[in-house]
């Protein structure tokens, strides 16, 4: 029997708002534990939540970017469960009326486009962090647990996909695309290693062609795209093997172990957990007016998929379009400006994704590009095309531009890098080289191609390396044939 994997992904995104979801404490990473806390995010008696408007705008933008419907009215619910790093022992979350619902995200796998449904995106608050001390840091063996509530109350958006993904590779592509959409919106720093974006996968398998869903397993603890792909792949294999051997899948949560490359059972769910959801009485319903939604929609930046499509329409190769689209906004702006200044899109993209990125990596420059802009990149490309500089000289020019030494022509002149492309000037040099090598013409005429290379070399030598080799080659052949 052939088994078909059915995968859905739940993504938690910490928003990068100035303050927390329901209080005025700062949102930041690092720092001393329990320094960004107040009565509200510590769950002190009597403290009350107040909704952060910026967080609601962020989730609305995420929803709009994912083609979601924005609920005109949405409510917060309390999700009740006891946990030491959950200060109120309930999480303010959303239940049946999320801010966003019914959207989609287009992904591309092996050149094929896939549309993945988004069930919902809802708003909630993050928990604090438990730090288990002693005996390997595992919860069950820990000697003591320390609690840091700096993260408590940080705005969290949960995006739940429909079970539309059919392979580990698709799961990874979805997660990467979603991350790039959120990065584009600038609402989160989407740093996997900091946990500002976290992925859980719901995995099941079913006989190919079946409409029924198999028993699903929730897989947690993937901290990179690679581990997401590996974990999902492993889980699909595990379930398939289990079913093939006549066993059955247990509905449970499994923990991905990066080192051993397998998932371990964390807890078996008996039916669904009872979180005793009820409307949060300390908050009033959110009302999202059509004007508010429209205003945010109008301010949405270009999404990565739209951008790739635009690049393709400009004639870029698909691989270049993908890489360029992933570059930072400053570099992409240079591309757009260079094209506007008349540069060929592919050439501009090649420079940016190749030499420019390499130079930046070498120089470990994080800051703004000092000298590079669209017009001077376009000029550099034009100089190469016209044979005014050699390709190796062009690389040197680029480094000069990026170091802030000026425009390409200016640097080329200063460093004497311009090639001799004047036919009249070259004629004389070629004639004298041919006069010095009388046998060469004869050899060429008798079919000795090698001699051309020798002659070009002599001419380049005579011009101090400044002749345009292509032009020399062409003129030489004309003279010897003629």
């Amino acid at each position, binding site marked *: 029997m052939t088994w078909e994997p059915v995968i859905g992904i739940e993504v938690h995104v910490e928003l990068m708002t100035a303050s927390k979801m329901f209080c005025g404490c700062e949102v930041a990473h690092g720092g001393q534990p329990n320094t960004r806390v107040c*009565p509200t995010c*510590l*769950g*002190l*008696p*009597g*403290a*009350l*939540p*107040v*909704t952060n408007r910026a967080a609601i705008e962020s989730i609305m933008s995420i929803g709009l970017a994912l083609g979601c419907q924005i609920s005109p009215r949405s409510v917060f619910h*309390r999700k*009740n469960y*006891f946990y*030491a790093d959950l*200060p*109120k*022992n*309930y999480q303010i979350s959303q239940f049946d009326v999320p801010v966003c619902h019914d959207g989609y995200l287009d992904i591309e796998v092996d050149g094929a486009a896939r549309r993945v449904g988004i069930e919902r995106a809802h708003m909630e608050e993050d928990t604090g962090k438990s730090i288990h001390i002693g005996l390997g840091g595992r919860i069950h063996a820990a000697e003591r*647990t320390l*609690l840091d509530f700096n993260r408590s109350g940080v705005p969290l958006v949960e995006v739940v996909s429909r079970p539309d993904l059919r392979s580990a590779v698709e799961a990874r592509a979805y997660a990467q695309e979603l991350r790039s959409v959120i990065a584009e919106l600038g609402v989160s720093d989407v740093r996997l290693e900091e946990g500002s974006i976290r992925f859980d996968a719901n995995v099941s398998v079913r006989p190919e062609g079946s409409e029924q869903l198999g028993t699903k397993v929730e897989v947690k603890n993937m901290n990179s795209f690679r581990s997401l792909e590996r974990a999902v792949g492993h889980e699909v294999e595990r379930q398939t093997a289990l079913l093939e051997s006549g066993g059955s899948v247990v509905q449970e949560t499994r923990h991905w172990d990066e080192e051993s490359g397998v998932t371990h059972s964390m807890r078996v769910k008996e039916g*669904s957990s*009872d979180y*005793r*959801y*009820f409307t949060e*009485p*300390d*908050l*009033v319903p959110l009302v999202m007016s059509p004007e508010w939604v429209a205003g945010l929609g109008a301010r949405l930046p270009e999404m990565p998929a739209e951008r790739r499509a635009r690049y393709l329409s400009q004639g870029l190769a698909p691989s270049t379009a993908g890489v360029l689209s992933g570059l930072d906004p400053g570099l992409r702006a240079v591309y757009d400006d260079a094209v506007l200044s008349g540069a060929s899109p592919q050439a501009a993209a090649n420079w940016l994704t190749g030499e420019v990125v390499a130079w930046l990596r070498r120089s470990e420059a994080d800051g703004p590009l000092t000298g590079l802009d669209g017009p001077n990149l376009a000029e550099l490309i034009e100089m190469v095309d016209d044979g005014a500089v050699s390709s190796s000289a062009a690389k040197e020019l680029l480094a000069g531009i990026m170091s802030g030494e000026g425009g390409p022509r200016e640097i080329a002149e200063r460093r004497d890098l311009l090639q001799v492309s004047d036919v009249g000037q070259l004629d004389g040099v070629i004639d004298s080289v041919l006069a010095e090598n009388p046998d060469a013409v004869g050899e060429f005429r008798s079919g000795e191609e090698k001699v051309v290379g020798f002659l070009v070399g002599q001419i380049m030598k005579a011009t101090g390396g400044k002749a345009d080799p292509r032009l020399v080659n062409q003129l030489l052949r004309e003279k010897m044939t003629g």
Partner: protein
Amino acid sequence: MAAGLADAGRLLRSGEITATALLEEALGTASRTEAQLHAFLTIDSEGAREAAAQADADFADGVDFGPLHGIPVALKDNLCTRGLETTAGSQILAGYVPPYDATVVERLRHGGAVIVGKTNLDEFAMGSSTENSAYGPTYNPWDLSRVPGGSSGGSAAVVAAGSALLGLGSDTGGSIRQPASLCGVVGMKPTYGTVSRYGLIAFASSLDQIGPFTRTVEDSAIALSTIWGHDPLDSTSYAGKYPDPVAGLERGVDGLKVGIVTELSGEGFEPGVEAATGDMLGRLEKAGVQLVEVSLPTFEIALSAYYLIAPAEASSNLARFDGIRYGLRVEGPTTEELMARTRAEGFGPEVTRRILLGTYSLSAGYYDAFYGQAQRVRAAIQEDFARAYDLVDVLVSPTSPTVAFEAGARTSDPLAMYLSDICNIPANMAGHPAMTVPIGLDDSGLPIGFQVMAPPLGEQIMYQVAAEVERQAAFVIAPTAVQVAR
């Protein structure tokens, strides 16, 4: 002693008394009566003396922060006070000192009020007799064998005895009005959302509302003017225009339509209560009101619905008391066990009962039949009220079906205890204002309260009627069981 806070304010400003003298009188009364009443959990003599001295200095400098400046105030111990122990009457918060002031406390401090101390209450405001306090019961100043009502029994007893001229309480299902009635003082629950709940240790968030205990109706209106108003820290806080509660006090009631709630009479209501209520209705009619019998059938089921909604919210609100961050901690081998032991030891039986009740009614499979159904009843109560207020300006009833009952009489019968608030709960369920005014004593010399209810933000007309009730009753607050005057 000053007749009330308005009277004291006049004396302070005319220089006839000082804030310090007023406070010493209050502290003196407290020291004479506390052994009998046990109305306070904490008396902050030192802080109060500083505040009173400051008020005197302010008056000397011509600085006047308004009607509560220099007035001795007592706060129910579920209102957070920075630097002053706040227990909510529970063992689980023994020794807990909040790092911040509740918004009402802040408003009182800005108004120059002198905070005398924190008053006793049923644990987490759950009860109708102040017998559920982990720190022992409070007794009624009119008869020490009887309860003061609850849950804000401490504030009611303190104001009746004169250890403060203003008490603050919280009213989730009658917790201000019922004890005010049983102690013979004025008690008022404002429209939901008009007094900030920030810093009130929550019982049932959608029902809780802070309000004043005073010796006169005018005092009540004045106190309300200071404590209410929009608070950005409470999302349920009303942000619109507030009525002036004082404006109608001298207006009289001629031409007003007063609705008598049919359902709040008859079985379960003591003859003495019914007689006094009937007598007051006759007086009001003579004063010019038009009496209208109004039936609000949902009042019959309000209590049942209340006992699904309030415990449900409480079960979640009280989850934070887990021994992890503050308050009592009972160690255990695991975190779960630590939490379970802390809660088992820290919560009293009534609180435990309501947490269990609430947890059950929110559980999957029961939610719709219990919590969901109760919310539908709540909506129906609001509709009932709306229909009634199409016909009348205010609704009236007894505040409590009985006068103060014997201590211990209802402690073993939760349902009998719950019925104490039958007249009060509908206003909480609808979020409407309601208040009680003492109108007389029954044959055994115990106070009887008269309840006035009004539509949302109808505080002005409610006080207008309450002021007339007060004039008609000419009730004298003179608790007979404690020595209140030197």
